[in-house]
C-alpha cells in the first residue's frame, strides 16, 4: 500500500458511513423510503463498478449494463433452473461479471477514446437481443414462502438495504485499495497518457484487463442484487441504455475517479429523480430523464470534475490550503545551484556499447521518416541527436522504445534485441524515456507522479516510494515531493518527468527535447542535472535543437536529416563539418567556424 494511513482513514470513513446508514435505515419504517435507500446503494454500487474502470483509467464505458444484466440473469436463472439461492447467485454473478469483463476487454482494449466508448455501447445492446432470443423476455423470481431467508427473501425490506450496504462497502473498500496502490496509480497514468504510462514501464493492457474484470465483478453483483429487489428481470430493464447511462451519470455527477463520487451522485440523483417522477410523472411525463439530463448539464457547467472535487475545493478554500508552488521554489533553487556548480566532467574513455542501432528505417506510407539510421551509444556517454523539425528524431525514439515497429533494421540494448518488445518491456530492460510535451498527472503530487514510474523497478509499493524519493533527490526536487503537479513550472515539470524516468534506475535514458520552453537560467540548471546523471553512470541519449546547449552537453553528436544520419562525431568535429553548418546551423556558425 502506498499510504496505509490514508487507506485506514478511508476504511474508517466507510465504516462511519455504514453505521450512519444503518441508523437512518433503522429509524425509517416507510417501505417506500426503505426501497429508495436500497436503490441508492444499488446504483452507487454500479457507479463504483463503472468508476473502477472508467473513472480511474479514463476509458469511458457506455456499456456497463453488460455486467449488470449478466449478473442479474446469472443469479436469476441459477435460481429458476437449478434452485440455487441468491446467496450463491450473487457471488456467481460476480464471477460471470469478471469473466465477461475479460471477454469484452480482450478485443475492445484495442480501441481508444471515443471508439472504445462506442464499442462498449454495442455489448449490452447485443446481450439485450440475445436474451430476448433465448426467450427470457420476462423472468420472474419465484416467491419462496418456505426457506425465505435461505432464498434471500425478506419481509422487512431493510434486509436488502443491509445486503446492499455490505456489497457497496466491500466495493468501496476495493476501490480505496485500488486508488491507493499501484493498481490505481497505473490506471491514473493510463488515463493521463497511455503512451507515457507504457513508456514508464506500466503494462497498460494488463492493468486495463484487471480493472475491467474487477469492474465486471462489482457490476455483476449490482445486477444480481437489483434482480432480487425488483424480482422481475427483463432484458430492457437490465441491459437497457438507461442502465448504462445511470452508472455513468451518478459517477460523473458525484466525481469520477474518487471513492465517494458514485455514492454522492446516487444519493442525490436517485431520490430526486424518483421524487420528481412520483410527484410530477403523470403531469410532466419523462421528468426523470429531464432530471438526469439537467444534472449532466449542470455538472458540466459548474463542476466538470464532479461534485466531490467541487466540495473538496470549496472546503479547502475556507480551510487549509496546500503550500502554493511558488513559495516552495526557494530551497530547490539552491539545490540545483549546487548541482550547477559542479564542473562538467567529460570522461575520455566510455564503457562498452550499450545501445546499438543498425540500418533502422521507418516509413509512413510514402514518407521516409527514418532511413537506414545507425548509431551507437556507449556506457556513460551523453549522445546528442540533432536535426531540424521532421528529421526523424522523435520517430527514432518511438521506434527505440517500442511505440512503433521499424520497417527494417536492428536495435540492441546491452546486446539484447529490442525488436518486437512493447514499450513497458523496453522500460523493464532499463531504458527510460521523457517526452517533448510533459504529461503530468495534474491532480497527483510530485511524488505520486514519480512513483508511477518507479513501479517497474519495485517489488512492493513501499519500495516504489523509496525509489521515487531517491529519483527526486537526483534531480534536486526532494523537498518538493508533496507539491501538486498541477501548479509546477515548466522546469519543475521537466525535472519531475526526468525523475519519473529515473525512478526505476534505468541504465539508458532517452530524453526528447528536455530544454524546450525553458529560460536561459533554467536551461543551465537542467544541463547541470543531466551532467550529474552521467557522472552517476547513466547513459543518456538526448534530442535537442538548441545547438549551443548540445555542444556543451554531449560527448558525441549524431546529425539527422530527412531520416538519414548525415554526420556523427564529437561536438567539435560535427560543428566544423561544412554540410552540417550550412544546412542546419546557419550563417552565424559558418562565420564562427571560419574564424
Amino acid at each position: 500500500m502506498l499510504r496505509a494511513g490514508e487507506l485506514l482513514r478511508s476504511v474508517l470513513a466507510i465504516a462511519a458511513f455504514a453505521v450512519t446508514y444503518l441508523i437512518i435505515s433503522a429509524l425509517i419504517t416507510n417501505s417506500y423510503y426503505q426501497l429508495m435507500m436500497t436503490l441508492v446503494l444499488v446504483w452507487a454500487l454500479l457507479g463504483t463498478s463503472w468508476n473502477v474502470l472508467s473513472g480511474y483509467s479514463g476509458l469511458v464505458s457506455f456499456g456497463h449494463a453488460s455486467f449488470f444484466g449478466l449478473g442479474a440473469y446469472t443469479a436469476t436463472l441459477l435460481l429458476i433452473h437449478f434452485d440455487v439461492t441468491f446467496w450463491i447467485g450473487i457471488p456467481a454473478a460476480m464471477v460471470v461479471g469478471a469473466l465477461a469483463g475479460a471477454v469484452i476487454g480482450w478485443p475492445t482494449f484495442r480501441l481508444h477514446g471515443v471508439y472504445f466508448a462506442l464499442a462498449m455501447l454495442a455489448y449490452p445492446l447485443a446481450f439485450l437481443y440475445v436474451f430476448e432470443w433465448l426467450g427470457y423476455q420476462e423472468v420472474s423470481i419465484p416467491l419462496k414462502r418456505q426457506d425465505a431467508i435461505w432464498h434471500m427473501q425478506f419481509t422487512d425490506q431493510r434486509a436488502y438495504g443491509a445486503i446492499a450496504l455490505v456489497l457497496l462497502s466491500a466495493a468501496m473498500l476495493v476501490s480505496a485499495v485500488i486508488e491507493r496502490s499501484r493498481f490505481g496509480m497505473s490506471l491514473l497514468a493510463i488515463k493521463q497518457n497511455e503512451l507515457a504510462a507504457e513508456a514508464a514501464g506500466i503494462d497498460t493492457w494488463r492493468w486495463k484487463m484487471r480493472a475491467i474484470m474487477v469492474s465486471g465483478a462489482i457490476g455483476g453483483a449490482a445486477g444480481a442484487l437489483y434482480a432480487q429487489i425488483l424480482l422481475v428481470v427483463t432484458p430492457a430493464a437490465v441491459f437497457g441504455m438507461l442502465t448504462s447511462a445511470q452508472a455513468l451519470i451518478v459517477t460523473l455527477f458525484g466525481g469520477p475517479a474518487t471513492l465517494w463520487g458514485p455514492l454522492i451522485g446516487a444519493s442525490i440523483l436517485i431520490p430526486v429523480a424518483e421524487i420528481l417522477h412520483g410527484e410530477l410523472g403523470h403531469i410532466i411525463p419523462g421528468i426523470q430523464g429531464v432530471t438526469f439530463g439537467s444534472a449532466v448539464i449542470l455538472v458540466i457547467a459548474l463542476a466538470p470534475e464532479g461534485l466531490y472535487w467541487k466540495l473538496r475545493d470549496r472546503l479547502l478554500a475556507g480551510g487549509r490550503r496546500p503550500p502554493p508552488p511558488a513559495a516552495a521554489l526557494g530551497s530547490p533553487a539552491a539545490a540545483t545551484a549546487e548541482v550547477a556548480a559542479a564542473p562538467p566532467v567529460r570522461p575520455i574513455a566510455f564503457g562498452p556499447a550499450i545501445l546499438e542501432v543498425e540500418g533502422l528505417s521507418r516509413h509512413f506510407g510514402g514518407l521516409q521518416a527514418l532511413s537506414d539510421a545507425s548509431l551507437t551509444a556507449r556506457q556513460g556517454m551523453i549522445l546528442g541527436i540533432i536535426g531540424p523539425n521532421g528529421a526523424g528524431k522523435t520517430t527514432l525514439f518511438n521506434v527505440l522504445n517500442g511505440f512503433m515497429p521499424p520497417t527494417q533494421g536492428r536495435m540492441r540494448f546491452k546486446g539484447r534485441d529490442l525488436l518486437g518488445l512493447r514499450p513497458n518491456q523496453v522500460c523493464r530492460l532499463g531504458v527510460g524515456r521523457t517526452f517533448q510535451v510533459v504529461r503530468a498527472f495534474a491532480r497527483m503530487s510530485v511524488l505520486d507522479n514519480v512513483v508511477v514510474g518507479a513501479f517497474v523497478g519495485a517489488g512492493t509499493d513501499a519500495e516504489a516510494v523509496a525509489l521515487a524519493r531517491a529519483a527526486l533527490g537526483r534531480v534536486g526536487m526532494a523537498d518538493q515531493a508533496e507539491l501538486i503537479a498541477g501548479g509546477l513550472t515548466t522546469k519543475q515539470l521537466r525535472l519531475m518527468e526526468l525523475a519519473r524516468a529515473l525512478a526505476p534506475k534505468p541504465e539508458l535514458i532517452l530524453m526528447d527535447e528536455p530544454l524546450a520552453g525553458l529560460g536561459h537560467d533554467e536551461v543551465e540548471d537542467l544541463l547541470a542535472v543531466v551532467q550529474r546523471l552521467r557522472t552517476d553512470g547513466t547513459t543518456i541519449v538526448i534530442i535537442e535543437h538548441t545547438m549551443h546547449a548540445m555542444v556543451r552537453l554531449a560527448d558525441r553528436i549524431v546529425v539527422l536529416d530527412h531520416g538519414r544520419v548525415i554526420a556523427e562525431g564529437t561536438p567539435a568535429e560535427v560543428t566544423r563539418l561544412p554540410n552540417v553548418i550550412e544546412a542546419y546551423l546557419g550563417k552565424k556558425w559558418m562565420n564562427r567556424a571560419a574564424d
Partner: protein
Amino acid sequence: MPTRRRLLQGAATAALSIALTLTLSPEAARAQANDILLTLIAPLSGGWARQGDLMKKGADLAVEDINAAGGVKLPGGNAKIRLIVADAGDTAEKAKNAAQRVLADNPNLTGGTGAWLSSFTLAITEVTERADVPWLTLSFADTITGRGFKNVFQTSATAGAMAGMTLDMVLELAKSATGETPKKSGFLADNTAAPTGFLKPLRDELLKAKGIEVVVDEIFTPPLADATPPVQRVRSTRPDMLFVYPTATPDVKAVLEKLKEFNLDRGRLPLIGNGAQFGTPEILNLVGKDLLEGFMFTIANWGVKGQEELINRFKQKTGEPWMTQDSISTYADMLVFKMAIEKAGSADKMKVAQALREIDTTDGVAKLYAGGRLKFDDKGRRVGASLYTIQWQGGEPKAVFPPTAAQAQPIWPKR
C-alpha cells in the same frame, strides 16, 4: 491531511442525509377518513403513456359513476371511492417504485389495478402480494398468475390460452365464410414478450393439431428496418392466413404498407393480429383506414354490443372515438371492487381479497368482460375468460365475433 479528509467525508455524509431527509417529508393527508382508496398504476409517461391514459379515462368514469350513484354501500353508511393514480413510467423499476410509494403512503389501500405491460404488472404485484393488497389486471402473461400468489386476479385470458382461442375463432370464421378451413398459415412478428408467448403454442402444437402447416415464420427484432424481405417470403410461400404481430405501431404500419405493395392486403390474405396496439385511435391516424381495412385482431376486452350506453357516454366524456380494452377493463375493475367491498361488508383489503376469491356471477359487471363470467380460480385466473375478434371496417374497429358481442358481420376475405 486528516482534517481536510474528515471534512470531505463529513460533507459527503451530510449530502446523503440531506438527500434522505428530502425524501422523508410526509405527504399531507388529503382524503376524508372514510373514503375507500383504490389505485390505478399505469404508464402515464414514456412509450406506453397512451395506454395508461386510456386506462385512467376508464377508471375515472367508473369512479364518477359509482360516487354519483351514492358510492359503495357499507354497513356503517355509504362511502365514496377515491382513486389514487400513479405513474408506472417506462421501466419495471419505476413501476415497482410507484407501487411501493402508493402502498407506503396509503396504508388503508383496499386494492388496485394495472399496469398494462406484463413486466410492470409482475414487478408491481411482487409488492402488492406481500402487502396482501388485492390486484386486478388485464396483463395476460401466464407468469402473472403462475407464481402461486393469492391476491392477484387476472381478468383477461392468459397469453398461453389466447393463442388457442384466437385460432379457434379464426377457423370458425373461415369455415362459416368460405366453407373450408385454411391449410397453410404464416407468422410475421417481432420477438418481444407478447408475440413470443402468443406464437409459441401455435407453432409448437396448436396448428399441427388442426392439420395446418406453418409455411412462413418471420420473426424480427424491432424496429423493423425494412419489411420487404419478410413480406416477400410471405408472398412466395402463399399462406392461407397470416398472423401479424408487431408490437410497435411503426412496425405495424411498415408491414401493412408492404403487404399492400405486394397486393396482399384487403382480402387477398386474411391478416390476424392480437393485442391492443391494433385497435388504438392512433393506429388509424398513422396507418390509415385503407391499409387497415379487413385487418382482424383478437383482444381480451372491448366495448361491444350491449354496452352502447356506456360506450356513448365514454365517447362523449373523453372525446375518444371508441372504447378499447384498456378503458373498459379499468371501468369494469372499479365496479368489481365495489361489488367485492359490498360483499365483504368492509373495505379491508384482506376481506375484499377473500370476497374476490368467492365471487361467481354472470350478471352486471361480469358482462363487461369477454366470456361474461366473473369468477376466479385458485390461481387467480378468470374462469371462462375469452376473447373478442375485432375487425377494421370502414375506419372503425368493430367487434365481429362472437356473434353475441358482434357489432358487425365479419368479412372473411375470399380469393
